[in-house]
C-alpha cells in the first residue's frame, strides 16, 4: 500500500517553531491529483511529439540545404544551429 501524500502548511500567525504542520491529503484531493496525473502524462506525450516533429522538420530542412550544395558551416551560419 502506498503512503498517503501530504502537504506542508506554514501558519505564520503562530510563534516560530510551531508554524509547520504536515497534513495528509483528503480522498478528494488524492482523486484530483490522480486525474491531473493522467492529464500530465498526456501533456508530456504531446510535448514529446511536438519536439520530435520539430526535430524532423529541422533535419529535413538541413538535408534539403545540403542537397542544394550548402556546406554544414554555411547551414549553421544561416540557421543559427
Amino acid at each position, binding site marked *: 500500500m502506498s503512503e498517503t501524500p501530504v*502537504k506542508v502548511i*506554514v501558519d505564520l500567525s503562530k510563534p516560530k517553531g510551531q508554524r509547520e504542520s504536515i497534513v495528509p491529503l483528503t480522498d478528494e484531493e488524492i482523486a484530483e491529483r490522480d486525474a491531473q496525473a493522467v492529464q500530465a502524462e498526456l501533456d508530456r506525450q504531446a510535448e514529446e511529439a511536438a519536439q*520530435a516533429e520539430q526535430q524532423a522538420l529541422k533535419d529535413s530542412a538541413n538535408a534539403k540545404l545540403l542537397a542544394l550544395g550548402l556546406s554544414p558551416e554555411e547551414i549553421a551560419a544561416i540557421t543559427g544551429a
Partner: protein
Amino acid sequence: MQLIETVELASAASSIEFTSIPQDGVDLVLKFSLRASDTGGYSYIDLALNGSSSNFSSVFLRANVQQATPVTSGSQTYQIEAGTTGDGATASTFANGEITISNYASSAAKSYSADSVTENNSTTASLAITAGLWNNTSAITSLELSLTPYNFLQYSSASLYKITAD
C-alpha cells in the same frame, strides 16, 4: 528584505503553503530550491494565491538546453513558467528560483515576476522567466507552491521574505 519563514522538507510533500502572511510589507519574495518526484528533468511549479489559481495571465521566455526547440516564448493563463529539477536529473541537484509579488497587501491587481533554473549535469536543463498579473484585488494572505501530480522531494526548501517601505 526581511525573512518571514523558511521551510525545508524532512520528507516528500505535494505542496508547501504559507498562510496568515503578515500584511506589513510592500512586496513579497519567495526563494525556492526544489526537486520533484517526476522522473523527467523538468516539472512545472504551480502557484496559488489565497487558494486561487484563477485570473492569472502571464508572458514567459523559456530556454531548454539540448532540445529541438531551444527557446520558447508565449503567453499563458496559468501562473508561472517556472520549473523544478525532476528526479530524472543528476542526483542531489535542485532547481532554484524566486517569485516577486509587488504590493501584495494592496487592493489593486497584483503584478509578479518569476525566474527559475534547473540543475542537471546531463541532457536537458532549462531556465525560465515570467512576468504576470493576478487580476484580483484581495490582499494576499496565503501562497502555495505545488507540483501536481508530483511531490517536492526531501530537502526541497522555500523561504518567504517581505520587502518593507523603510
